[in-house]
């Protein structure tokens, strides 16, 4: 085993929640809103279906192969050669995804807060701290996640300060154009919810593996509630016009003013988003490093962390030229790509594994 640490189910929830919402909260509301318009508050509920399904698939696979990560069991399911190709693909998918997450975060920081500092400073900064955490192992990530997520989530209460500006009229008429636009918007959320496939890398390291399913479902539910909460505020404060903004939540926070003195909370929110993104990038980097080490059967994954981070600095700039392309990618490509890799392919893996098991069981 490359990872000797153990985490508890609560720690896993603390890790998974910011892993999904950290980047999701930045721009998903407006992307989903582009399809669903004034029904956008429902999109996370539709999107979460993929989340629950993914958790379930991952859980079933985990039950078939306890103590193994997808990299290891895909070889057992698909055979040596095909399994190797699949796991290599999975690892490169996560490396690529990490780079995109880093780019989303850095774009946000250098586009809204630190206009003059070169963005590469923030890329290196966040990857450096994430690499530090990943080198510490899953326990260190989990323990930091508890603290970071608590701070990160508590700042989302700032949204409540804008409660006096809410206009429920923006939500009407409900389901004017039928369910289809909502489903389309939900699909955007599904891309994020499909990231629950990452759980398959954590289930083997749980103290009490039996509680894994419940905890995964709970995490999925929390993410759905938070997305709904955020979408509700985006819709009722900014209305449908929010779809024209890259970072609608940021706009709301900017507008908060209490007693004419407590205002401009956006820098606090941004600072706390750094914490959330740190957890997200750490989790992704951890999975990519662990996966890479397992594919090549290295004796430890810690040696690949820093080289991989260096590669990610470059990748995050190669992949995406600018924010317009990024938004386009998030709208048109990622929903299908992510769900395909993280939900559909595992489903096939599960079917093959079940079929093989049944055959070997009957003979």
């Amino acid at each position, binding site marked *: 085993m490359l990872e000797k640490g153990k985490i*508890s189910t*609560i*720690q896993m929830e*603390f890790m998974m929640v910011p892993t999904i919402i950290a980047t999701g909260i930045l721009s998903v509301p407006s992307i989903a809103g582009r399809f669903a318009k004034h029904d956008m508050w429902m999109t996370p509920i539709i999107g979460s279906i993929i989340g629950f399904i993914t958790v379930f698939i991952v859980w079933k696979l985990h039950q078939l192969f306890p103590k193994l990560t997808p990299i290891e069991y895909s070889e057992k399911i698909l055979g040596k050669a095909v399994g190797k190709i699949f796991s290599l693909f999975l690892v490169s998918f996560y490396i690529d995804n990490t780079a995109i997450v880093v780019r989303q975060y850095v774009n946000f*920081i250098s586009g809204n*807060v*630190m206009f003059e*500092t070169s963005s590469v*400073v*923030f890329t290196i*900064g*966040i990857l450096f*701290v994430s690499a*530090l*955490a990943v080198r*510490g192992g899953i*326990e*260190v990530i*989990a*323990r*930091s996640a*508890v*603290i*970071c997520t608590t701070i990160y989530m508590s700042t989302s209460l700032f949204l409540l300060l804008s409660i006096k500006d809410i206009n429920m009229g923006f939500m009407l008429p409900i389901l004017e154009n039928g369910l289809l636009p909502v489903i389309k918007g939900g699909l955007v959320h599904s891309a994020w919810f499909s990231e629950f496939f990452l759980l398959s890398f954590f289930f083997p390291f749980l103290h009490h593996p039996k509680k894994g399913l419940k905890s995964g479902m709970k995490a999925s539910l929390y993410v759905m509630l938070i997305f709904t909460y955020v979408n509700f505020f985006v819709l009722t404060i900014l209305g449908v016009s929010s779809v024209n903004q890259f970072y609608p939540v940021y706009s709301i926070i900017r507008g908060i003013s209490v007693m*004419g*003195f407590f*205002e*401009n909370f*956006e*820098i606090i929110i*941004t*600072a*706390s988003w*750094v*914490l959330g993104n*740190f957890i997200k990038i750490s989790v992704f980097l951890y999975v990519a490093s662990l996966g890479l080490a397992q594919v090549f059967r290295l004796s430890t994954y810690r040696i690949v962390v820093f080289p991989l981070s260096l590669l990610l600095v470059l990748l995050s700039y190669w992949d995406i030229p600018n924010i317009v392309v990024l938004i386009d990618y998030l709208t048109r490509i990622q929903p299908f790509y992510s769900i395909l890799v993280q939900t559909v392919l595992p489903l096939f893996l599960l079917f093959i594994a079940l079929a093989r098991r049944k055959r070997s069981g009957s003979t």
Partner: protein
Amino acid sequence: MVIRIRRGPSRKTTKAQKAPKQASQDIPLTQKIEENIEFFSSLYQESSDVIFRSFVVGEKDACIIYIDGLSDTQKLDQQVLETLLDKTEFDESDFLLSVKNKLPISNIKNISTYSACIDSIGNGSPILLFDGYEEALSLGLVKYEKRSIEEPQAETAIRGPREGFTESLGVNISLLRRIIKDPALKMKTILVGKYTKTKVVISYIEGLADNTLIEEIERRLQTINIDGVLESGYIEQFIEDDPYSPFPQVLYTERPDVVSANLLEGRAILMIEGTPFSLIAPVSFFSLFQSQEDYYERFWIGTFIRVLRFLFLAISLFLPSVYVAITTFHQEMVPPDLLISIASAREGIPFPAIVEALLMEIAFEALREAGIRLPKQVGSAVSIVGALVIGQAAVQAGIVGAPMIIVVSITGIASFMVPRYSIGLAIRLLRFPIIILGGTLGLIGVMLALIILIIHLSSLKSFGLPYLSPVSTVEKNSLKDTLIRAPLWKMNHRPQLTGEYKAVRQGPNLKPGRNKGGE
């Protein structure tokens, strides 16, 4: 003849020189008293304070060896010598036992090796040698000057016991035994230090403390191979998990009530001879923010002060760097009126905010350190000069802005909010790199510093206990005593430390009320 005399002692001195090195090998005493005395006199040559008193009991040669000033000579004269010289008849068949029976001393032991004798003399117990016996008697007549029990200087309390530990190990142990009377309270002694041979007592409550923890502490103590232990800090630095961390992984206290509370929670205590400070292990980050009075006062106050402490921890760590970051990068965050007053105060100041902050923080640290080390009469002069020159003149001269003075003072006050001095030191140290990060990367830099801090604290362990537990491990029962202080009748469980532990601390349904005990 001359040659023989010279050769005689010289051979002995080689043996004697060897003896301390081979102390652990335990060379047995010989039957001939002359050889034994010769051994000790060569060992203690040029030590005028070691006293050899030879005399005859019945027909046997005897000798008492002790160090002047460590033993109670009055009792030695009246109780030992008088009895022995008083022509009392001793049973020849079992001479040692009969001597033992006749001597009115409660603590008397048979020892049979040179090293044990040396230890006994060094500790202040005189040894009694008899010709023809391979055993000596160690007489427990230790008496030396010691400080009386006083109120602890560094940890004062408004409500709570006023007794503090002293430099004497025996007194400290008795203070502890007086609080915890159960025989489950164990004391294991280990000698540390080649020359000081300092007694280190591992104290724990059997059944509450994890056995593997005690074994691990013992193992770490036994690997210490140094010349001497002068303070608990020597021990602390040799048994830590992560020696490079700025954070203390062992807690020290001079209050018996704090030690007892920790013993009852299943922790181990190290009491060290010669210092009033006892070490507590394992500890977590949150133990450093617990003060004994949190538990003695009403829980609302305890909780309020806890919350306040964490708030001021954040302030003392981050306030200067956040100020630097905001005035340098995020001016838009400050409300306009405040911004104008800050800007007007900073107008004409030649330094950027980061230099200003570093300057003032270093000046403050210098003032603080000077105030501690100087004699009391001079110390007040330093603080007057500091307050006037740095506070007043620097602002009037336009070198530093007034808001920066306010920030530095608030930070200084905030750092005194922490009940444990050792964590305050870590915070003082960490403030500087955070200011630099805040001055270069703005609030994002401060956040990166916070993340690095969290990662470091998450990877830190104190004797196997995660440093950020129970918060980072999310243990519901133990969370009642971290950021908040739950009512005592609610804290039914001991905090989860390492390994096996007895979870239940007290009976259920202890909540007092009007209807308690029959209407």
